């Protein structure tokens, strides 16, 4: 984009309105908190958040540390992307490791091998160790029912817990970030975005994503109605057979519970067309952990999950 003048329309376009709102939220955090951190998984939502942070403070560098909660079951393409991004932008990255937490005995490996639920402990330990007081997450209200009632600024107690009844009403654009020592605030600048908005913004801003978001051939096996990739985490089990499929990922998470979808979408435009026509939410389609019960996300949020 170059110099633009005011369009004839009265308001902003939807994407401009969402972008402006997210930038406003990020600047509020920079103005009100001492030690903000941005959770960066290398997933598309966190990549969009980082892009917005660059825009919010330009020409100054991004004033936030990044933190990656590393389950140890990573897609190598995503870790490469993470490291290249950190290098290129000269950012500081803190890695909170689930493997370390297991080795220390802070958490115990689950029988099913999934490490997504195990991320809460290293996340909270990382927040405590580095005394982070504001934690940016890429959560969106359209993702899941319990998230629909989440605030932009979400207060967490010293145990990182979310109490829906203790959340502060948010009026106008006055975000109240005050907290007691030991408490922190989760901040969700993408609250009002939908999956499709994120993709359209990625297209418009020409944001580069890890390659696994686009169609590729991969050896996978079926479990619980999803295509999972084999790995050290423990798949496939006996009776589960590997086969080569043309797939892509709609979300990026722990390999043990993040499923691929069959797709031939090789470009952002292809993905947008696919998402627009999709019959399933991204979590419903590709996250085993959210299928556990009607209130699975609510329970994990209460415990301090993202």
């Amino acid at each position, binding site marked *: 984009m170059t110099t633009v003048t005011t369009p004839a329309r*009265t*308001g902003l376009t939807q994407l401009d309105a969402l972008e402006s709102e997210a930038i406003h939220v990020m600047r509020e955090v920079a*103005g009100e908190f001492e030690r903000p951190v941005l959770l960066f998984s290398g997933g598309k939502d966190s990549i969009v958040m980082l892009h917005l942070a660059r*825009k919010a403070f330009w020409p100054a560098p991004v004033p936030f540390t990044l933190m990656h909660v590393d389950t140890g079951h990573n897609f190598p393409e995503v870790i490469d992307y993470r490291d290249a991004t950190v290098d290129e932008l000269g950012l500081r990255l803190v890695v909170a490791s689930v493997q370390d937490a297991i080795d220390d005995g802070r958490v115990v490996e689950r029988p099913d091998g999934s490490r997504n639920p195990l991320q809460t402990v290293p996340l909270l330990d990382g927040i405590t160790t580095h005394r982070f007081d504001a934690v940016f997450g890429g959560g969106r209200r359209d993702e899941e029912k319990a998230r629909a009632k989440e605030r932009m600024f979400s207060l967490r107690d010293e145990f990182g817990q979310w109490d829906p009844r203790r959340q502060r009403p948010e009026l106008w654009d006055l975000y109240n970030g005050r907290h007691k020592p030991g408490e922190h605030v989760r901040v969700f600048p993408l609250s*009002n975005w939908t999956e499709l908005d994120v993709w359209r913004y990625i297209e418009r801003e020409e944001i580069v994503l890890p390659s696994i978001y686009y169609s590729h051939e991969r050896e996978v096996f079926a479990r619980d109605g999803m295509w999972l990739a084999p790995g050290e985490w423990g798949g496939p089990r006996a009776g589960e057979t590997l086969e080569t499929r043309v797939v892509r990922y709609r979300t990026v998470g722990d390999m043990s519970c993040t499923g691929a979808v069959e797709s031939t979408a090789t470009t952002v435009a292809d993905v947008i067309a696919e998402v627009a026509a999709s019959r399933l*939410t991204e979590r419903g389609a590709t996250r085993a952990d959210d299928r556990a019960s009607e209130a699975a996300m609510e329970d994990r949020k209460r415990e301090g999950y993202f």
Partner: protein
Amino acid sequence: MTTDTSTLPATADDTATDHAQRDLLRLATAGSVDDGKSTLIGRLLYDTKSVLADQLAAVEAATAARGGGAVDLALLTDGLRSEREQGITIDVAYRYFSTARRAFVLADTPGHVQYTRNMVTGASTAELAIVLVDARKGVLEQTRRHATITALLGVPHVVLAVNKMDLVDFDETTFRTIADDFAQYAAAIGLTDVQAVPLSALDGDNVVDRSARTPWYDGPTLLDHLESVPVDRDAHTEAFRFPVQVVIRPRTPEHPDYRGYAGRIASGVVRVGDEVTVLPSGKASTITGIDTFDGPLDEAHAPQSVTLRLADDVDVARGDVLVPSGSTVTVGQDLEGTVCWLAERRSVLGARVLVRIGTRTVRALLREVNARLDVDTQTVEVWDGVDTLHAVDATDTSSDVAPRALTLNAIGRVKVRLAEPVVLDDYAEHRRTGGFLLVDPADGTTLAAGLVGPTLLDRLTPTPPPGAHDDDWLAGAGI
């Protein structure tokens, strides 16, 4: 991969064409489960193809678990476990749907009397409010309550959704009577843009698709209307306001001397060359640049987030407001306005609080609570002003003054003394800068949301407020 999609409507029309040009409307709904509000929202989501197969499957499963019957669209919007167990909505929930023309952020607020605070929250950012009535019952006390809060918060557009028309045989007279009844009340409280729509959320009449059962109705369907009301119109005609969020000073080799003021334009338009004044300091300067990551702009308008550069090296910090030079702007330390009390603990006269207004937070004293609005009867109870210099213990219920406290969900008129001067824009004129919060300095709890200046509460007050107070009372009090 496995979910049955046979019950779904045809493919989403949300294709790539024109989405880049569509805008965003924030709206709020008020009404109770009895009015069919959840069903109406479920219908909007369903008929705009915003419900996906797994969400629908979850609702089907939940319906079956509760004894079955037709799929209950209301279950699409029930969020938290306790809400599902109690069958009520506790908190504001946000819903998203879109059409080719416009995207919508819907704040779904509960209608129970004890949840006024949620309605106020949802209405604060809404440009349109849907007030629901049951065609069999007409305008009720709670309809007036919803309309009152909508008017208080200055929501520009209102839809009166006359629901359950199927249960009154789509009778035109019934609809007209309710619409006229509401119009009369709306005019009295200053709601100027009201569109009444006869509909059946259960069957879908006039929600998205025009109903064949209301041939006598030639107005828009609900969605037609939502797609066509103007967005952000007022933000451009209002005076320029720019609350500074952060000062951008990179001090990098590429930008060693750059200094810019980052913020979101709250209202109005700004151009390079405009003369501006920094408030509250009163120093004047000229805009020399409007910067964004994507390149400089000649002109920017609300609600864009930009970074402004000034010609002079004036002192500007977070909390300051840039306004057009030569305009009349109120700056002061005595804030009078209307608050909605949001906290479980009640108001205490003489309490030390924080006032958050724009991007500024200042220490303050809750000096007086002198009236209370009953949103059910739309009457204002005027209380004698209590001089908080002789601070009373409002937690003492035996005190004559205790009943004058504001409790959760109460709406009252207050006077607040601020420790330093701030910009005080009347909310009625400046919806985007005239709102404020009262915050408990001890634990950060948001105690109340406030509107600067005269509001609907004052309009509904039968007699003038008690005599003007001597504003010098605080001199030397040393807050």
